[in-house]
C-alpha cells in the first residue's frame, strides 16, 4: 500500500470525541482502525485501563488483531459486541440492578439451543401457544428481538425452514415474554439477543445506569466498534447509551451499504443514530484501495446509497459472467482449475446461501425428521453438522444428546457435572465418542433404523459410563417419517472443511471484510423468476434491500478477478432487463472459460470427467 490517503489522515488526526468512519469496500478501514488503536495505546503507558475493539463477528475482531500486528491482551479487549456486553455489563451488573435474577449465563447460538427440549427444574424452553394442533410452538431460545414498541422488545422468530424474521403473533407475545422472563429469572440463561436487550436496559437504568456507564468508561476510555451497520437494534441501543458517556471516546466504523445481517435482526438504520451523538464527527472514506476500475463500476451499480467508489490506482482487474449448464458439476470443475493455476493467490468461492454451498460440496441434507426421541434427534443433527464441516455445532448437539439422556435436560454446566463427580473433559470425550460412533453407522437403511443404531450406541456408552443411563428410554419412536431413507438426511461425508476441490467456499457473510485475488460468486438458478438477480438486486421492496447489499459485498471482495457463475436463464433475464450492467462483464460458458484458460490439459481432463459422469 502506498501512503495513507488524505481521507485516512483526516480520520487519524481528528480530535472529535467520537469519530464515525463511513468506509466503502477496500478503502483501508482496517488499516485505519489499526493505526488509531496503535496511537491510543502509545499514549496510554500506564496500562491501568484499556481499549475495547469490538466487531459484530469474531472474524472482525481477528482482522483488527492481525492489522494491529501484535497481541492486544489485557487490559485491552478485542472481541464481539455480544461478548463485550455480556462480560462487562450483564455479568457484573445484572444481579446488582435486578437481584431477583439468577446469575447470568450466555447460551451461544452455536449450541443450537433452539433445539433444546427441557431446562433444569422443569423450566420450559418451549412456548406452545394456544390453538391446539395449529399452535405455533415457539422455541424460547430461538426468539430474537429486532425492534421495540411501547410494550417493550418485539419478539420475533423465523420458521424452522428459514425465511425472514417475523414478529410472533400479538396474542402470543405476552405469554411468550412471561415464559422468557421465567428462564431469565430462574435459570439466568441468556441468548445473545436476550443479553443485548438486558444490556441496553442496564445501561439505561434510571438509578444505576450512570454509575455503570462511568465504571465501564473508566475501564475502557476508548472504544472501537467495527461493522457498525450490522449492529442489531438492542446492541446498537446499548452502545449508543454507553457512548453517550462524555468521558468516553470512540471510533465507529461501518458502511450501511454493506449491511448484510438484517436477516438476523440487524438494523442498518441505527447507523444514523450514532451520528446524532454529541461530539461526533463523520469521516467518509470513499477511495477504494482494493477494487480495480471494472469492479468498482460493478459495485457502484449495486451500491444502495449515492456516491462513487474511487478505484485503486494501477489495478488491472477483470470481471466475467460464466454460464453453467450444471451448477454443481461446472463449479467443481472451475474450482479444480482455479486451485491448480492459482498458486499463492487468494481464491474463494462465495454463495449467498449456505444451502447453495452445501449443494456444491455435496453435504446438503434435508432438515432431519423428529422421530420422537429428543436425545437421538440431537445426535442425528450432530452427525449431519459434522458431515457438513460444522464441528462446533456438531459437538454441541452431541453434548445436548448425552446431557438430555443422563440429566433429563440440556445445557448442563461444568458445576453440575462436578457435583455428579463427572469431569468436564470426560463428559466431552463421551460426546465425541457418541458422535464419531454414530457417524460410522450405515445410512443405506431407513432413518428409523439409523436412529435405532444410534440409540444403541448412546445407551451402551452411557451404561459404560454410568450403571444406569437415566430414566428415559433412548429408543426412537416410530412416527410418520420413519420409513424415509437415512441417506436423505445424512449424506455421505466428503470433507470436514467447507471447500470445493481445494478452493475454500463460504457464504457472503463469511467473507465479510476479506480481500481476494479471485472471487467466484455463485448464483443458483432461482425457483421463481421474481427471485432472479435481475429483479431482486434492483428491487425497491424493503425486504429485498439486503439481497442487493449482499451482492455489493460479494463483488467488492476482489482486487483482481471477479467471476460470477450464473445460469443461462438468469443471464438472459439480466441481459434483457439490466443490459448496461451485464456489459461490464465478459461473458462465456464455464466450459469455454476452462478451455481458454486451461489449454489442452484441462480439455482432456474435462473429457475424462464427463465420460466418468
Amino acid at each position: 500500500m502506498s501512503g495513507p490517503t488524505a481521507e485516512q489522515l483526516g480520520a487519524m488526526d481528528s480530535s472529535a470525541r467520537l469519530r464515525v468512519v463511513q468506509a466503502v469496500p477496500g478503502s483501508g478501514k482496517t488499516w485505519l482502525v489499526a493505526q488509531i488503536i496503535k496511537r491510543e495505546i502509545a499514549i496510554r503507558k500506564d496500562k491501568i485501563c484499556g481499549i475495547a475493539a469490538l466487531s459484530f463477528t469474531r472474524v472482525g475482531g481477528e482482522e483488527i488483531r492481525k492489522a494491529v500486528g501484535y497481541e492486544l491482551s489485557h487490559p485491552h479487549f478485542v472481541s464481539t459486541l455480544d461478548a463485550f456486553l455480556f462480560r462487562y455489563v450483564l455479568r457484573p451488573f445484572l444481579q446488582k440492578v435486578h437481584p431477583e435474577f439468577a446469575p447470568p449465563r450466555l447460551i451461544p447460538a452455536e449450541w443450537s439451543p433452539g433445539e433444546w427440549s427441557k431446562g433444569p427444574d422443569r423450566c420450559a424452553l418451549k412456548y406452545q401457544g394456544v390453538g391446539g394442533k395449529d399452535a405455533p410452538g415457539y422455541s424460547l431460545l430461538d426468539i430474537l428481538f429486532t425492534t421495540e414498541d411501547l410494550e417493550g422488545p418485539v419478539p420475533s422468530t423465523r420458521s424452522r425452514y428459514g425465511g425472514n424474521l417475523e414478529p410472533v403473533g400479538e396474542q402470543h407475545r405476552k405469554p411468550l415474554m412471561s415464559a422468557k422472563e421465567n428462564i431469565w429469572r430462574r435459570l439466568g440463561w441468556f441468548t445473545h439477543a436476550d443479553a443485548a436487550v438486558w444490556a441496553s436496559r442496564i445501561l439505561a437504568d434510571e438509578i444505576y445506569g450512570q454509575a455503570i456507564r462511568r465504571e465501564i468508561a473508566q475501564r475502557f476510555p476508548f472504544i472501537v466498534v467495527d461493522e457498525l451497520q450490522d449492529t442489531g437494534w438492542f446492541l446498537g441501543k446499548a452502545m449508543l447509551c454507553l457512548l453517550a458517556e462524555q468521558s468516553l471516546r470512540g471510533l465507529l466504523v461501518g458502511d450501511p451499504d454493506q449491511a448484510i445481517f438484517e436477516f438476523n435482526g440487524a438494523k442498518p438504520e441505527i447507523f444514523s443514530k450514532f451520528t446524532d451523538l454529541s461530539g461526533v464527527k463523520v469521516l467518509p472514506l470513499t477511495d477504494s484501495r482494493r477494487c480495480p476500475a471494472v469492479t468498482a463500476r460493478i459495485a457502484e451499480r449495486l451500491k444502495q446509497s449515492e456516491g462513487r467508489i474511487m478505484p485503486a490506482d494501477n489495478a488491472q482487474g477483470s470481471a466475467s459472467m460464466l454460464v453453467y449448464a450444471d451448477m454443481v458439476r461446472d463449479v467443481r470443475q472451475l474450482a479444480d482449475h482455479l486451485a491448480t493455476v492459482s498458486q499463492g493467490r487468494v481464491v474463494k468461492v462465495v454463495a449467498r446461501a449456505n444451502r447453495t454451498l452445501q449443494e456444491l460440496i455435496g453435504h446438503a441434507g434435508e432438515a432431519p425428521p423428529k422421530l420422537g426421541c429428543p436425545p437421538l434427534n440431537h445426535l442425528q443433527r450432530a452427525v449431519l453438522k459434522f458431515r457438513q464441516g460444522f464441528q462446533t455445532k456438531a459437538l454441541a448437539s452431541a453434548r445436548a444428546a448425552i446431557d438430555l439422556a443422563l440429566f433429563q435436560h440440556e445445557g448442563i454446566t461444568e458445576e453440575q457435572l462436578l457435583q455428579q463427580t463427572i469431569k468436564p473433559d470426560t463428559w466431552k470425550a463421551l460426546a465425541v465418542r457418541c458422535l464419531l460412533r454414530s457417524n460410522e453407522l450405515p445410512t443405506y437403511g431407513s432413518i428409523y433404523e439409523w436412529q435405532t443404531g444410534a440409540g444403541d450406541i448412546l445407551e451402551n456408552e452411557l451404561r459404560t459410563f454410568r450403571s444406569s443411563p437415566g430414566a428415559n428410554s433412548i429408543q426412537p419412536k416410530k412416527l410418520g417419517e420413519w420409513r424415509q431413507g437415512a441417506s436423505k438426511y445424512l449424506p455421505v461425508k466428503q470433507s470436514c472443511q467447507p471447500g470445493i476441490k481445494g478452493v475454500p467456499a463460504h457464504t457472503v457473510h463469511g467473507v465479510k471484510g476479506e480481500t481476494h485475488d479471485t472471487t467466484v460468486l455463485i448464483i443458483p438458478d432461482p425457483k421463481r423468476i421474481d427471485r432472479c438477480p435481475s429483479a431482486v438486486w434492483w428491487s425497491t421492496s424493503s425486504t429485498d434491500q439486503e439481497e442487493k447489499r449482499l451482492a455489493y459485498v460479494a463483488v467488492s471482495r476482489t482486487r483482481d478477478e471477479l467471476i460470477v457463475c450464473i445460469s443461462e436463464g438468469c443471464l438472459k433475464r439480466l441481459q434483457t432487463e439490466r443490459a448496461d450492467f451485464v456489459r461490464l462483464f465478459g461473458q462465456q460458458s464455464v466450459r469455454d472459460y476452462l478451455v481458454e484458460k486451461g489449454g489442452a490439459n484441462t480439455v482432456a481432463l474435462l473429457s475424462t470427467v464427463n465420460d466418468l459422469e
Partner: protein
Amino acid sequence: MVNSMEGRPKTSDKLTIPVSRQDDGTGRYLSRSYPYSARSAKGSNMHLSKVEIENFRSLRHLDVNLQPGLNVIAGRNNVGKTNLFQAIRHAIGRTGARGDSLWLDRDDFYRESPSAEPATEMSVKLTFSNLSEQQRAYFFEIVNFDLSDLAKSTANITFTATWPNGKKHPSVKRTGGPESVEPPEVPAPLLESLPITFLPALRDAEAFLVPGPRSRLAQVLEDIASRDVHASQTQDEIKTMFREANVKLEGHRLVKKITGSLQSTTKGIAGSDYSPSSITAAESDFRKILRGLQVQMDAAPITSLDANGLGYNNLIYIAVVLEHLKSSGVDECPLLLLEEPEAHLHPQLTVLLADFLSTQTPGNTTPQTIVTTHSPVLAAKIPPSRMHVLFTDSRGGSARCNSVGVIGVVDEGEKKRQNKQEMQLQRIMDVTRATLYFAKGILLVEGISEALLVPVFAKRMGQDLAKLQISVIPICGVAFGTFKEVLGPEGLAIPAAIVTDGDPQITRGENWNEDQPETDGDRFKPSARTVKLKELFQNHATVQIFHSDLTLEYDLAAAGDKNAMVMTHAWADCFAGLPQTFNADLLQNAGPSLAARALCAWRGICRANNAGSKAEFAHHLAARLEETNENGTPKEDFVIPTYIKNAIGYVAEKVKSTVLPVEAPPA
C-alpha cells in the same frame, strides 16, 4: 412489558440517549455525585480483606478477616499459620509469587484423618476491599460491584483445584468477579498485579541479597527505575558510569598485561580464534548491572553479607522487601507474608521489628503485611487491634481466626473508648507477655498472689494447667472489663475465669484489728465494683466471674479448719522473728469459728501495717503447699477456697471438652 421491571422505576425502552450527569452540554465536567462517596474520590487503600479456605492441607474450613497495613496472626504450633500463607499464595499462583517456589501436591488436599482419602476439591477465595476508582477500572474483571456505594465494591479471586484420578497434575482454576455460572478465568496481568512476597521461617535471606539473578535488591531498583519518569535517562546514566569504569580498568597496566597473556595462553591451548578480549568490572546491560549490586553494612567490622549473622541478614532483607513494596503503583496491591520473624532474631531485635512494623509503617503507606508468630515477645509489642488469633480443634479440621481489632469499633464516640481500651489491653499484654494469645484457657487474676497460688491449687486438684495450656494471668489490678470483648466469641473465644475479690466496704476501727467488712445479713456485702463486674459479664459466652467473699487471704483461711494455721507458718516465713500481726497465738485467741479465724488472718496480713508483703506471703504459702510426702501426697492439709476451685474447674473442663468452647453467632 416483562414483570421483572415491576416494583422499581421503569427503564425507558425508547431509543433515547441518557445524558450523563457530568455533561452540562458544554463539554465541561460537573462535579461527581452519587454513588461516588467521598471515600472513593480520595486516596484509597486496596487490601486483602478476607481469605476463605476450604479443604487446604490441615484446614477444612477457615475464614480470616484482614485489615490494611499490619496484621499479626498468633497461634499455637500446628494450627495452620503456614497453611494460611500457602493457601493465599496458591490463590494468586506462580504469576504473582515472589520468594519461595510454589507447588500444589496431592497432600495439599485436606484429609479427615491420615488414613482417609484426600478431598476431591479445594478452594481459596481472596476478597480485596477499598478499591479506588482507578483500581475498580484496572481490576474490573474481578470486581464485585456495589452499585449503592461503589467505594464498597470488592475484588475477588477464587482458586479451585481438583486432582482427577490417575492424573499427575492438579486441575487448577482461578476465577473472579460476581457470582457466576461459568465464571471467567482471571487474566494473568491481574494476578501479576497482586504480587505476594513470602518470607518463610527458614528463609535464606543471604541468597536473595547477594549479587545474582535472584537478587531482590536488583528487582527493587529495576522496578523503581521503570516507574521513574526519566527511566531511560536513569538507565543511561548508570550504564555510562559502568562503561567508563570498564574503560579505565581496561586501560590499567595490570589488567592490560593480564589480558594480553590470557589471550596468548588461550590461543596456545585451544588454537582457537576465540580468546579473552578484555577484563571488565561489570556488565554493561542495565539489568545485569543491577544484579551485580549488593547491600553492605557500614558499621559492621566486616562489611560483606556472609559475615553477618542470619538475624541481621534477615533484617536487611525485610528492609529491602518493604522498600520494594512501598513503591507499588495504583495497578498493584502487593502483600507481604512474613513467617515467624522471631525465628532469626533475639528478643530485643524482635521487639524493635515489631515496633517498626506496627508504628513506623502505618496502615496507609505500608504494604499490607501479614506476620505469623508464636512469640509472646513479638505479640506483646503489637497493638491488639492488629492481632488475630488462629486456633483449631483437636482434629485439625475446623479452624477459626478471630481479630481482636474488629471488636466493638462502631462509631467515633465508641472509637475513643475503644482506643483507651486498646491501650489498656496493650499494657496488660506487655506485662503478661501476651500469653493470652497462645493459651487454650485463661485464669485472669488480680495480682501476683493469686498468680502464685492458683497453679498450686490446680495441681492439688489434679489439673495440670501447663499441659492443658491454661495460662494464669495477673492483670495487676481489677480492670477486668477490658477483656469483655477480647475474650468473647468474636475475639479470642477462649474460656476464661476471672478470679477477683468481693472487696466489701471496710469500716475502719480504732486499730487495724478492729477493721470490719460491710455485711448484708450474715454475709459480706460485695463491693459495687464486684457487683458491676458480675453484671458486665452476665451471660458472657466464654467468661465467668469467681470472687472471694472478702479477699484472697480471708477466703484462704475460711476454706478449711487447718488452713489458717498453715497460713501462720507461711506468714512467719516472711519474717526473721515471730510476726506480730498474725501468728498461732493470735489465731488461738480469735476463737474456734472459721469466720473469726479468717478475719484474724485477713486483719493480720492485709490490714495491719507491717513489713511483710502479701506477695511474699503467697510465695511462701505456695512453696509449703507444693511440698509432698514420699508417697507424693501433699504435706500440708489445706482446703482450696471454693471460688478458686470453681474457677479452675470451669476453665479446665471447658478446655478439655473442646478448644472451641463457643460458636460465633452467624455473621
